[in-house]
């Protein structure tokens, strides 16, 4: 029987994948994707908990999160375009003029 724990473990794994992805990938787009994965991990947890609690609050939240995440990606892509245009790169390591 697949229970709450399983969902949560899956969610945690997703979250970890997202995190590791952010840390290991250099490409802005990949990083944005990984962030999406993190959001989705949260979404999964919400849904699982909603199921467990038997109310819809969590599922409502998920909708909001999806919307926000979409907006986030939009902004992210816009900035990625700027990067590509102005700096001719999408590699975040190369964008480190500001430091110390």
């Amino acid at each position, binding site marked *: 029987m697949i229970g709450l724990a399983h969902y949560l473990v899956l969610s945690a794994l997703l979250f970890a994948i997202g995190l590791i992805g952010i840390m290991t990938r250099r490409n802005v787009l990949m990083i944005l994707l990984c962030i999406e994965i993190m959001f989705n991990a949260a979404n999964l947890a919400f849904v699982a908990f909603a199921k*467990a609690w038997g109310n819809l609050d969590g599922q409502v939240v998920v909708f909001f999160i999806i919307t926000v995440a979409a907006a*986030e990606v939009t902004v992210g892509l816009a900035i990625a375009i700027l990067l590509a245009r102005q700096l001719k790169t999408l590699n975040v390591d190369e964008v*480190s003029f500001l430091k110390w």
Partner: protein
Amino acid sequence: MTIPLPWLSVELFACAWILVLLAADLLLPEARKASLWLWTLAGLGICAILLAGQAIAGGHHLIQQMFLVDPFSRFFKALFLGTAAVVVVMTRPFGRHLAGRLGAFYLLLFTAVLGMLVLASVHDLLMLFLGLELLTFSLYIMAAYLRTEARSIEAGMKYLILGSLSSGFLVYGMALLYGFAGSTHFEAIRHAFEVGPVPPIAVAGLLLVMAGLGFKIAAVPFHLWVPDVYEGAPTPVVALLSVGSKTAGVVALTRLLFGAAPTMAGLWTNVLAGLSAATMLYGNLGAIPQTNIKRLLGYSSIGHAGYLLMGLSAGSQSGVEAVSFYLVAYFVSNLAVFLAVTWAGEQLGSDELEQYNGLSKRSPFLAAALFIGFLSLAGVPPLAGFVGKLFVMLRAVESGRLWLVAIGAVNVAISLYYYLMVIKRMYLDAPPTSTTFRLDRLATVTLSLLLLGVLWLGIVQEPLVRQILVSVRP
């Protein structure tokens, strides 16, 4: 369900005004767009009037209890509106960099204000998330607004990635809290904490949400975006970041901790105290070697975050009152500094500290403003910052954390050091050129008012203290 209009009037009007600005930006001929700042100011003014119209004590829960309008939120909403107004004034000298896209800038400013207004009233995790994202998205775009400048883009990118990361943690923490309490509503969560038992998952959730907000406040170790973004982003945006966004973060954190987890105070006061110590030390020590004024202010704003956390770590009503005073003091002092820095940046052509050499000879007023602003930030009487720090430390002593107060006290001296290093440049060193410049009337008046506020709060604290006493009930 009816929409309780009077209690939402400010937010609703802000939404409406965003549309108005959008329309104006689209419809107005290019030549007339310069007047958009007036439209923005007018919008903020009307918001303020509407806010004043809500002058009724007690809390009002709206939108399924998710939204709480009470004196506490009103107090900070007023502060946010003020911040935005000053930022608008800052965009005046900065305008040429934004040529052609001013309308959208004001639009984004207004959305950011809306986000902050929402944050002041949050009483639900979902609302918290929405308000926060609304504010942050606007800031992402504004940070990268100078789209031909690599530094601005880089600032936007870094802010975006780290902001999203923190949102990710926040959301995940919210999920855990929801899992614990079965609701995202603060009351429910509080109830769950009160009833107990508290599983680790709930603690983790609380900590993750705190981390997400810590990112806004710029608490170590969630502060790492701050120096880079401050250095790269347009100066008015930095002002908004450092005053508005930070205040919003503190307010939201206060709402969360006192509204949803008062019984967990034993945990989070210690966490906040630890963060506070690290934040003060990191921010103030890191500021010492800086050579760029905006970067320096970034580090300094980290330091201030530490003091704010110190006040919150007292875990008491009076601690929040102290933090509120600190925020107001920080509001006047820091905005004065940023207004001056915006002007100086325009006139000197750079934000590098070298350019500030001999500023007191080139523009005595500007130098004096920076002088007073810096000293207030450092916490020197008779200026506002001093009283703020004193209150915060007092509450920390009350909570028995003398070690934290000791670190705070030492940091006063450290921060004074790097502020004085700037003052030394302005007053002691020889200017590179002898050309002088003046501020326009709007800036002069605004700056004077802010400085007057700095002095006034430093000397006559009672009115504000009384206001805080009646308002601040987190």
